[in-house]
């Protein structure tokens, strides 16, 4: 059943009302209103330090806003929400970490549970199903530190899907993956959205791998933001206004390239 065939859920899965956040005297964003509905794919774009990770942390209830509120399923966001999946910004897993692929997924299934560390048959079955869903069976028993970035990221997706989340928060899940793995991982997330109506908030430097999946873009820059469909946001005039400096957007063969964005000088990845 695709989301369009499913009964429309009128209440947004996530909504931010008048959200504002800054650190010290630096404002990251303010006056942010955002409703994310069931099955919606939101891409969050912006240069380094524009507050993308902080925004996800606010959604997770880990970061208090300076003003405004974040509602998940109509209730204030709080840590440990059962129906929220999270793929953190990637960090290198040290070789020698005592975790195999399947153990990472197991932590998502029962890692928060106190009590004697006994793995139940249900836990094991849940992990097997998750591993199958992301196509990770073949490398699930190898040490995490010995797996490639793409393999680790598949396992991260499986871990985040553990409680069948209504909302999946992904922080640059494609970072340092090659093109083939970028496609594989984003398709995995998109398939989940289509089949289960999971809403997705997807932070990324480069929108191209997910361009065909994105419903709306939240573009952060210069302490300001713009929200809209990719066609509404990825335009010369809109981005020039956002950056406060002339910016050009080129589209060729289904790819989008933004030229002239100030932060592009600080890091070599071309945004959007």
């Amino acid at each position, binding site marked *: 059943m695709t989301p369009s065939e499913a009964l429309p859920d009128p209440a947004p899965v996530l909504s931010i009302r008048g959200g504002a956040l800054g650190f010290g005297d630096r404002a990251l964003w303010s006056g942010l209103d955002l409703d994310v509905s069931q099955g919606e794919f939101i891409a969050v774009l912006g240069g380094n330090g524009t507050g993308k990770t902080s925004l996800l942390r606010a959604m997770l209830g*880990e970061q208090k806003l300076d003003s405004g509120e974040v509602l998940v399923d109509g209730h204030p966001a709080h840590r440990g929400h059962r129906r929220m999946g*999270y793929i953190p910004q990637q960090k290198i897993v040290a070789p*020698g970490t005592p975790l195999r692929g399947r153990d990472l997924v197991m932590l998502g299934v029962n*890692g*928060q549970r*106190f009590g004697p*560390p006994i793995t139940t048959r249900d836990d094991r079955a849940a992990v097997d199903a998750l591993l199958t869903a992301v196509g990770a069976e073949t490398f699930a028993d190898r040490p995490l530190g010995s797996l490639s970035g793409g393999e680790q990221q598949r396992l991260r997706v499986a871990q985040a899907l553990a409680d069948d989340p209504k909302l999946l928060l992904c922080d640059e899940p494609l970072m340092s993956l090659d093109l083939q793995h970028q496609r594989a991982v984003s398709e995995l997330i998109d398939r989940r959205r289509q089949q289960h109506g999971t809403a997705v908030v997807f932070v990324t430097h480069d929108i191209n791998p997910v361009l065909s999946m994105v419903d709306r873009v939240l573009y952060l820059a210069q302490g300001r933001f713009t929200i809209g469909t990719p066609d509404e946001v990825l335009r010369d005039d809109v981005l020039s206004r956002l950056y406060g400096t002339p910016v050009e957007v080129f589209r060729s063969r289904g790819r989008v390239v933004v030229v002239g964005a100030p932060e592009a000088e600080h890091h070599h990845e071309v945004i959007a």
Partner: protein
Amino acid sequence: MTFVDPATYLQLLGLVQNSIIAAAVLGIVGGLIGVFVMQRDMAFAVHGISELSFAGAAAALLLGINVVAGSIVGSLIAAALIGVLGAKARDRNSIIGVLMPFGLGLGILFLALYPGRSGNKFGLLTGQIISVDLPQLGLLIAISIVVLVSLLVVWRPLTFDSLDPEVASARGVPSRALSFVFMTLLGLTVAVSVQIIGALLVLALLVTPAAAALRVSSSPVLVPVLSMIFGFVSAVGGILLAIGGSLPISPYITTISFAIYLVCRLVGSRAKVAR
């Protein structure tokens, strides 16, 4: 080095039976908590805690109060300081680096002021289990069991928090509370270890077994089980060898635990080549 005849050995064995039980329990608990010491990168902290634990024990000796209690107080003060001031790894290392010589110096001062036998004095630094009396041994065993049970209760969330802190926190794992619980358990374990193997050698039971286990496995079940076995074999093996000869126990324990580590390194690198 002289070895006693079998009959005398058995007799000695009967005399130190309680010490062996204490060492066995500590070997197991040390091996288990060592897994988290490695995961949370706390080896240096263990060393720091043990020096303050030594100072606490020495103070107790001087004041004529319960040495185990003194050791625990020292341990817990150190664990709390490290836990509160050293949330970040870099801060932690500098705090430990500052605490360690201070604790050791205090302990040496207290021992210098202590008028009693000198055998007692160095026991706290290098191990003295045979001279620990029966009520104290009971206390050590009881503490170890409390640590063991508590560790099992927090095992999964603590593993989650140690290996995957961002997701653990998002999933509602109470990371600050767990860190407090862990530092307390670590402090208690160190206090027990100081009594048995001595402040300078605590790492041989709290780090080496887990480090060895990590060389040969990445399974979250096998690593703690192996580490526990390694700790047990080192501690009990050390006593069994020591009572037959005239040397102190600690060098036997440290040597066995080091030998196990060497073998595991060898096996581990073989396995990697074969893969």
